[in-house]
C-alpha cells in the first residue's frame, strides 16, 4: 500500500483507545471487541498519534531518543498501523 507522507496528519482511528494496563505491564490498543498489547516502541509512536503530522511526530521522537536511528522504522510502522485500521491518516 501507499506510503504515509510527511505532511499527513496522523491520529488514532475513531473507536480506538490507547492505555496503560498494569495487569499486562504494557500499553494496549483497545478497539471494538479487540485489543493488542504493544511493545514499548509501538506505544511511543502511537502515543504521539494525536493529529500532528508524521514529520512532527518523527522529530518529537528523535528528540526524545537522540541516539536512536528510528526514522525508517517509524515510517514502516505507520504504514502497518494504517493498514491494520488503527490510524486515521488525513
Amino acid at each position: 500500500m501507499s506510503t504515509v507522507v510527511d505532511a499527513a496528519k496522523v491520529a488514532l482511528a475513531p473507536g480506538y483507545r490507547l492505555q496503560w494496563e498494569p495487569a499486562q505491564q504494557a500499553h494496549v490498543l483497545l478497539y471494538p471487541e479487540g485489543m493488542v498489547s504493544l511493545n514499548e516502541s509501538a506505544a511511543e509512536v502511537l502515543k504521539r498519534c494525536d493529529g500532528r503530522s508524521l514529520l512532527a511526530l518523527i522529530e518529537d521522537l528523535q528528540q526524545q531518543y537522540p541516539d536512536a536511528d528510528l526514522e525508517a522504522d517509524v515510517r514502516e510502522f505507520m504504514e502497518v498501523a494504517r493498514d491494520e485500521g488503527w490510524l486515521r491518516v488525513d
Partner: protein
Amino acid sequence: MKAGCVSTEPSPPLWLLAELTYACPLQCPYCSNPVDFAHFGPELDTQEWLSVLREARALGAVQLGFSGGEPLLRPDLEVLIAEAHRLGYYTNLITSGLRLDAARVERLREAGLDHIQLSFQASARELNDRMAGTASFEQKKAAARLVKAAGYPMVLCFVLYRDNIDCVPQMLALAEELGADYVELANTQYHGWALLNRERLMPSAEQVKTAERATNQYRAQSDGRMKVYYVVPDYHDGRPKACVNGWGSTFLTVTADGKALPCHSARDLPGLSFPDVRRQPLREIWYDSPLFNRFRGFDWMKEPCRSCPERERDFGGCRCQAYLLTGDAANADPACSQSPLHAAVRNAVAGAGESVSSQTLIFRNRRNSLTDAKPEPAPRKAQTWTP
C-alpha cells in the same frame, strides 16, 4: 501468593462478558443462551453488578461486553456503563437494537459507551422477522442509523444458518447501505438453542463454500473501508476452534443470575459446580475455583490432544462441544478431524441441507425454556469408537 510460585500463576482475565439479563424481545432459534434459562434464579441487581465490574477490573479485565438476552432491557445499563467507563474498561454493547431510540443512544454515549454491535437475523425483512419471531427488521435499520449518527464505529453481525447463508452478498450490501465499519459473518455455533435446532440450521458444505467465496470476492473488489470478519464453521472445517483462547486464560463470563463461567456455554457441562459471585470474591473464583482450574493448561488432556503439537494453538477445542457430542468434556473436540469421534460431526455435516428437514424450529422463549429439557449428550449409538 509466595514468591517463587509466580511462574505457575494463571494469567489474569482480560475480557469480561456480562450477560445482564436473559430477557429478550427476540426469539432466535440459533441463540447460544442456555435452553433452561427460565429456571434460573433472580438477576443480579445494580449493586451486585457494580461489584462484579470493580472486582474484574482489579484482576485485569479491560474489554467488557454487555450482552444477554437483550441488555437494553436493563434500566440500569447506563449506570453500569458509567462505572465501567470510570474504571477504564473499553465497553461494548451487544444488542439486537430493538427499542433503541435516539434518546437512549445519547444516554449511552454520555455514560461513556465505546461501541455498539448490532445484530441482524437476515438481509431481508421477511426472513429476519420470521427468525427473530417478531417484526424487527425496520427497527434494526433505524437503530443502525442512530448508532452511525452518534459517531460510533458501527459493527453489524449476521449469524449464518441454512436459510440465510446464501445471502452473504445481500448482507454486505445492506451493511454498506447502513454505513457499517465492520461486518461479522458468524457461522452458527451449536450451543444452547442452536444445538436443539441443529438439523434445521446447519447449511450444506456447498453453501458454506459459496458463502466463503462471496466474502472473499467482496474483499477483493471493495476499497477495504468496510472490514469483513468471517467466522468459519468448525463443523465443516475439520479444525476445532481455540475455544475461549484456553479455558480460564483470558475470558470471564458472569451470567444474569450471578454464576462465573470460563465460557458462556459452560453450564452445558455436567458434574461441575458453578461459582456464585454473590458468595465468593471474583479473585478467588478465577484463581482457585475447581471450575476455572478444571481445564486450565494441558494436564487434563487425553489422547489425541495430549501429544498433539496443535494443542498450544487450539487447546483441544471447545469443552462444551466435546461433552455434547462425545459424552466426555475431556475428549478432543470432535470438530477436529483427528478426534476418533469426528464421525458424529461428519455425519451431521453430510446430512445437512440434503433433504428438507422435518424438524420444526424451536424458538428461544420462556415458554419453550420451561418445557424443553437441557440438551442431552449424544446418544451412545451415534458413536463408532469405544474408549
